[in-house]
């Protein structure tokens, strides 16, 4: 019973804890002094301007350049307003430069990588946290150990594994499986989901077992519906990571027909007119930025820190 009541109360305390501390480095009393308020205002105003120029500036520039004719971008790269808006750039990039094709490839890569990351993380976390077989600790140790192996060690042997899978001797080269499956082996995801499952009230699992729910039913009808927050976190970061990935798809998808945007963009750059190329860059940036704006809280709360650090 004690364990049952503890989890919600912790959650409630977290929810009601004010996000802002009552005071910061500068005391409320000092804040009222005009000189302090003035200098703080100037500093923060300066920071805001700097952040707008540095953070937003290049993205706005890209948006502008995407609809500006090449000659104008070259002649006056920092002109604020294009004299002639050339919307056709976007259409040309989308169709003639085949960005549509690579965009779909990127979506396929992202959706498949999302599926396998969710599949491995939820089933793995469920086995390690809820079912707890005897061999669970050994597997958990092995999964954790991979966190400490830098990805550079995997690069070559994983590539050779893709060329010739052990036992079945099949090559996954030029198939999306070659990107999807290795992305599923994310120890960070398994750890994140396991920790979340550890916090779920175990009494509910016991009650479900008594009512005759088997392990599959328990996972599908009880555990997963209770885990929407963590599934959301893993999903968003899985899609973003797949969208960003460059070196791995470059190695295992040498066929241009299969390549995602990140791999194609540098390759087609020399063959495109500048305005069309910049339009292609802009198109590739739209979806990640839309995801960021939609799930800002998730990104800014630091939920995906591990992902950020590993990326």
């Amino acid at each position: 019973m004690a364990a049952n009541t503890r989890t919600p109360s912790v959650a409630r305390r977290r929810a009601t804890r004010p996000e802002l501390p009552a005071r910061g480095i500068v005391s409320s009393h000092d804040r009222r002094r005009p000189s302090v308020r003035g200098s703080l205002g100037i500093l923060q105003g300066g920071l805001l301007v700097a952040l707008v120029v540095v953070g937003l500036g290049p993205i706005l520039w890209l948006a502008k350049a995407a609809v500006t004719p090449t000659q104008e971008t070259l002649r006056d790269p920092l002109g604020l307003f294009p004299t002639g808006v050339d919307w056709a750039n976007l259409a040309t990039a989308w169709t003639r430069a085949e960005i549509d094709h690579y965009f779909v490839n990127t979506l396929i890569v992202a959706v498949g990588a999302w599926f396998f990351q969710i599949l491995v993380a939820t089933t793995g976390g469920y086995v390690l946290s809820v079912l707890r077989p005897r061999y669970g600790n050994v597997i958990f140790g092995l999964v954790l150990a991979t966190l400490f192996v830098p990805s550079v060690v995997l690069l070559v042997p994983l590539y050779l594994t893709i060329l010739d899978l052990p036992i079945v001797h099949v090559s996954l080269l030029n198939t999306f499986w070659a990107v999807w499956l290795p992305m599923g082996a994310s120890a960070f995801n398994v750890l994140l989901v396991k920790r979340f499952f550890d916090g779920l009230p175990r009494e509910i699992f016991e009650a479900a077992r008594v009512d005759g729910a088997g392990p599959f039913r328990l996972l599908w009808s009880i555990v997963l519906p209770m885990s929407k927050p963590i599934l959301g976190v893993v999903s968003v970061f899985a899609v973003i990571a797949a969208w960003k990935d460059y070196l791995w798809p470059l190695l295992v998808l040498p066929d241009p027909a299969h390549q995602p945007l990140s791999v194609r963009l540098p390759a087609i750059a020399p063959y495109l007119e500048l305005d069309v190329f910049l339009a292609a860059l802009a198109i590739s940036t739209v979806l990640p930025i839309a995801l960021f704006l939609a799930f800002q809280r998730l990104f800014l709360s630091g939920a995906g820190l591990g992902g950020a650090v590993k990326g």
Partner: protein
Amino acid sequence: MTTISSPLRATAPAPPPPSPPRPHHSRRRTPRQWLRDGGLSTLIIACPMILVFGVFSWFPIGRALVMSVQETNLVTAPAFVGLDNFVFVLQDPLLGKAVTNTLWFALLALVFGYPLPLAAAVLMSEVRRMRGLFSALAYLPVVVPPVVAVLLWKFFYDPSDTGVFNTIAGWVGLGPYPWLQDATSAMPSLVLEATWAAAGGTVIIYLAALVGVRTELYEAAEVDGAGVWRKIWHVTLPQLRGVLFITLILQVIGTAQVFLEPFLFTGGGPNNATLTVLMLIYDYAFGSSLGGNYGAATALSLMLAGVLAVLSAVYFRVTRPWSS
């Protein structure tokens, strides 16, 4: 059919005994008990994790160790060659260049990218209104796909006097600079872009840590007559030191494996000025001229991982007295 499956039939419809909170048996279970306790379903559910990690993580890690002492060329069977791969890598005249370049990149990344996010985060933590806007703006570059960021900056770095950065430099009477085309300015140019792309993530980490700073200590410091700088130096920073130590080592580990920027900006040039360790690994394994030397590539990546492991171990040992 009747004779074989009847014992199974007999047990199958029986409702599973309302098993008590799964006792941890100390004695060995028979396979049948294991089956009845749901051992098979557990194994089936564990399968995706075991298979995916087994084939795409544990197996390649083990294989890396084996490959580093083998000659692998995909044509003939791998042959044991002892430490030849390591010797080959250590005797490669490019290795010294790659190591110094990587160290130079890491050092520059620390100079550009370590103090700035901290200062920005401390200042942002004092913002009362629109703090969300500040952090969203700081984080925005992190969401831009890295390849897009590099290609965009490559255009910004155009060496002609109408290049974007050269135009800006021209406003204050400087330049035009060759940026990526010159051996001395190429690396700092790479680091500048890498810092732009990554700093937002660090800012968010610091902001999260700053929320946890105990504010009573500020009052105590004020009673002692401390000004803003002394409060930051004696109260804020000491409470952030755990996070500061971690971000430092993570940044070093990350920059030691830098690949995307040199690969896409300069291809390692000019004159190998931006050739990094990871680019050398790539060249050994997949490069057009060297290419196919998988043993050397694995040996070098193991050496890099070993150096990073030793570095982190020493780092944590040295900083432990201060970090908690």
